[in-house]
């Protein structure tokens, strides 16, 4: 399993250097991808929320896995890590861990949105 790589000495939600390297340094394209990510994340998160409330741990694991992959692609290490926690909670059937994981994932996502809003200015 790929370990989440944390950006050096900063709490930035994205490892910019790593993300840009994957797409040939195209910053506009990165912005487009992040918007796509946010859109997909939002719908996945509500499904995840529903699954946690309904105790559907199989779905929790599946969506956790998908978000983990998507986050890794954009070098979002904290989101990747939290998504992985949820995937593990789903797989081991640990509902209380899934609940805290969901909240932590939401927090990381808000940090990303704040970061994006700041960058856009």
């Amino acid at each position, binding site marked *: 399993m790929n370990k989440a790589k944390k950006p050096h000495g900063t709490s930035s939600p994205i490892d910019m250097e790593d993300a840009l390297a994957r797409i040939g340094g195209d910053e506009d394209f990165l912005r487009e*991808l992040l918007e796509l990510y946010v859109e997909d994340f939002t719908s996945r998160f509500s499904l995840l929320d529903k699954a946690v409330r309904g105790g559907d741990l199989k779905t929790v694991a599946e969506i956790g896995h*998908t978000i983990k992959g998507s986050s890794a692609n954009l070098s979002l290490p904290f989101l990747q890590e939290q998504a992985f926690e949820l995937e593990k909670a789903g797989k081991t059937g640990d509902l209380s861990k899934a609940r805290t994981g969901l909240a932590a994932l939401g927090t990381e996502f808000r940090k990303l949105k704040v970061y994006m809003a700041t960058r856009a200015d």
Partner: protein
Amino acid sequence: MKILVAEDDRVSLRILEKNIGDWGYDIVVAGNGDQALRKIGDGNVRLAILDWMMPGMNGLEICKHIRQNNGSNYIYIILLTSRDRSQDILEGLEAGADDYMTKPVNFLELRARLKTGWRIVELEDKLLESNRKLKDLASRDSLTSLWNRANIMKFLEENMERCKREKQPVSTIMVDIDEFKRTNDTCGHFAGDIVLIQVAKRLERCLRKYDKIGRYGGDEMLIVLPGCGLKEAGDIAERLRLVVDGEKVNTPAGGLDISITLGCSSSAGFSRPTPETLVQASDAALYRGKKQGKNCVVTG
């Protein structure tokens, strides 16, 4: 020739699409397994990058499907997986994948692997092309480039069976070049060869596209006319006779007046026709034509 990328995560799909497109490949994308199968069905996809985990049919299942329903062209498959346990890799390769990569994709590596895949696909194409050429060569007469005897007889047999099912007749015309031995003796074998080639060309050009002609023996050619009755065969034969008789054949020995005699028969005239009896009947008609003074068409 296209590369298919099947991946349900839109971010990942966009990155793959952009990079692969930038490398100059023609690319089609699919957001799930079912879409991927449809795009493969459209043809032209020669290399597929399939995500293992997808809703609907997953990458592994698509891989198996491609290998089981193997079309005429080989599709090189790279499986993408976030798994890197050797058991999963083995399962992927056993399902028919040629290569695998773990996610997130290292694009330098992907580019190199695509090159390898492409090279294999191109090699496969070259191999198929030379196989096709060899097969074609083996089925033709080397002098006239007409089908050889075995091939024209096979065509006759297949069409007699098909036409029998469809309750249609099949006709054959046996063609022989008049005085061919004398042409060879007086003008030389080289001129004789040219006569043979030119006559074959004229006859072939005159036929409908579903009719076939083959070299049957020395200067004998057999024409098979599927779905054609005796009367129609006779009309076609007369047209062929005129196309040869109407114009001199140019050879190094000068322009030669060449004629042909044609014998026609049809399966409708037999209760249980076989390719052999049909050809024999055409041959007998041809023989009668030769006796009648050559440069003519005899039917029956």
